[in-house]
């Protein structure tokens, strides 16, 4: 690395020798991972090159409607994945879509209104992607926690129902636990930023030649937006999904496992 912002293809070719290190260990230790490694490397290169071309096209196509459509497409994909994690959640896809969409919308709106970013594809797509994928991971954790709590805490819920409590009051602890579970990884990673790791975005900016102080400003923005979006998405998804564990007679029902 010589401080320039471009990497030559020849340099990349030389760097690809690092893959041989993995192959050597696999062969030496009889891990039988050689085939998997080669496939994964080839896939990574092809996928990234393809994405590079797609992003080049997308960033050049400065139509706000197209950008919105792409963000919606990303939201749908993330919702689909989150819903798959929470099979025990009734109407998981719809709830996930709503939660991620609102979390993303609110966060992006604040960032746009504060003047930090503009509604340009080269800013909206990567930042939207970070927000959406973070929400997706948070929702998966929320759903897992919720399904497990509703299975393991039947006695607590039925005790509260038997005392005449509504389903919301009976589930409040579980909802709280699930929201916390969704938010904690983002909070924990915020706590250790700069101490344990230099996050990807900041590293990328520094590698691309941006001054560390400027890169840090971006990272602070990313930290704020990820905290906000996981809080909003986890909150909405948990408050919308707990009802699916009850029937219309306010009785706890058995739902299939995650």
């Amino acid at each position, binding site marked *: 690395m010589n401080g320039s912002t471009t990497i030559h293809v020849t340099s990349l070719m030389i760097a690809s020798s690092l893959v041989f290190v993995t192959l050597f260990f696999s062969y030496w230790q009889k891990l039988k991972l050689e085939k998997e490694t080669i496939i994964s490397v080839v896939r990574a290169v092809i996928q990234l090159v393809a994405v590079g071309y797609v992003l080049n096209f997308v960033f050049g196509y400065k139509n706000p409607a197209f950008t919105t459509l792409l963000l919606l497409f990303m939201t749908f994909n993330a919702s689909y994945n989150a819903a798959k994690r929470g099979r025990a959640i009734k109407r998981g896809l719809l709830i996930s879509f709503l939660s991620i969409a609102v979390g993303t919308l609110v966060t992006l709106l604040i960032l746009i209104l504060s003047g930090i970013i503009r509604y340009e594809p080269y800013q909206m797509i990567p930042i939207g992607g970070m927000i959406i994928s973070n929400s997706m991971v948070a929702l998966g954790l929320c759903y897992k926690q919720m399904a497990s709590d509703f299975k393991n805490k039947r*006695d*607590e819920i*039925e*005790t*509260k*129902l*038997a*005392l*005449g*409590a*509504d389903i919301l*009051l009976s589930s409040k*602890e579980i909802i709280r636990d699930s929201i916390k579970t969704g938010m904690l990884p983002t909070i924990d990673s915020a706590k250790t930023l700069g101490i344990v790791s230099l996050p990807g975005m900041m590293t990328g900016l520094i590698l691309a030649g941006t001054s560390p102080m400027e890169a840090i400003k971006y990272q602070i923005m990313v930290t704020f937006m990820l905290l906000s979006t996981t809080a909003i998405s986890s909150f909405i998804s948990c408050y919308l999904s707990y009802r699916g564990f009850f029937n219309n*007679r*306010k*009785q*706890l029902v058995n739902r299939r496992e995650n």
Partner: protein
Amino acid sequence: MSSLDFSHVFFTNDNQSILKDVSVSIDAGDFLSIVGPSGSGKSTFLKLCCHLISPTDGAISFKGKNLNDYNPMELRKQIAYCFQMPYLFGDHVKENLEFPFVVRNVPFEQERVDELFSVFHMANDYLHKEVKNLSGGEKQRIALIRSLLFKPEILLLDEVTSALDTANTEIVEQAVKSLNQKGTTILWITHNTEQSRKHANKLLTIENGEIHTLEAIQ
């Protein structure tokens, strides 16, 4: 007048028949002991009474009205259910005894709590005790007090004394008997033959999900 009325009630769970064609009438003020082997459907019978589950077939009515026509929360406030293994939530006893007040959105009444503490032979300072430091008997008495704060019309007891020592059992029996004398209908599942006949005026035997006998006790 009949207080609870089961009419040809069936309950099936995971294709397993738990209760079969159960028809029984429980009068207001009754003290009904329910006996039967483990797994015969006794607890299911009680859970149906307070609408924590609904029959697969047949109908249950309370004071002549089908349970499905009641608001479930309002119904459960009138038909209290105490579990065999009491579940106390939070860190302190107070959180448990405040809960019924929170549910009804009314201010906490210390006097009512003290009154029930005295019925169950407990000192007033129990209110601030930590749940984790209570014995099984103390937990069960707190759970009973929690269910009785608002004087339910029917009290459902699911083997509440099975894990208690003789002294605690005696306290609970006396408290329940006195409640019954004041008009509360009692449905009490017990494995203890002597206990089943001690205070009850009716004895219901459930076997294999069916009513085996319903006899009056003199």
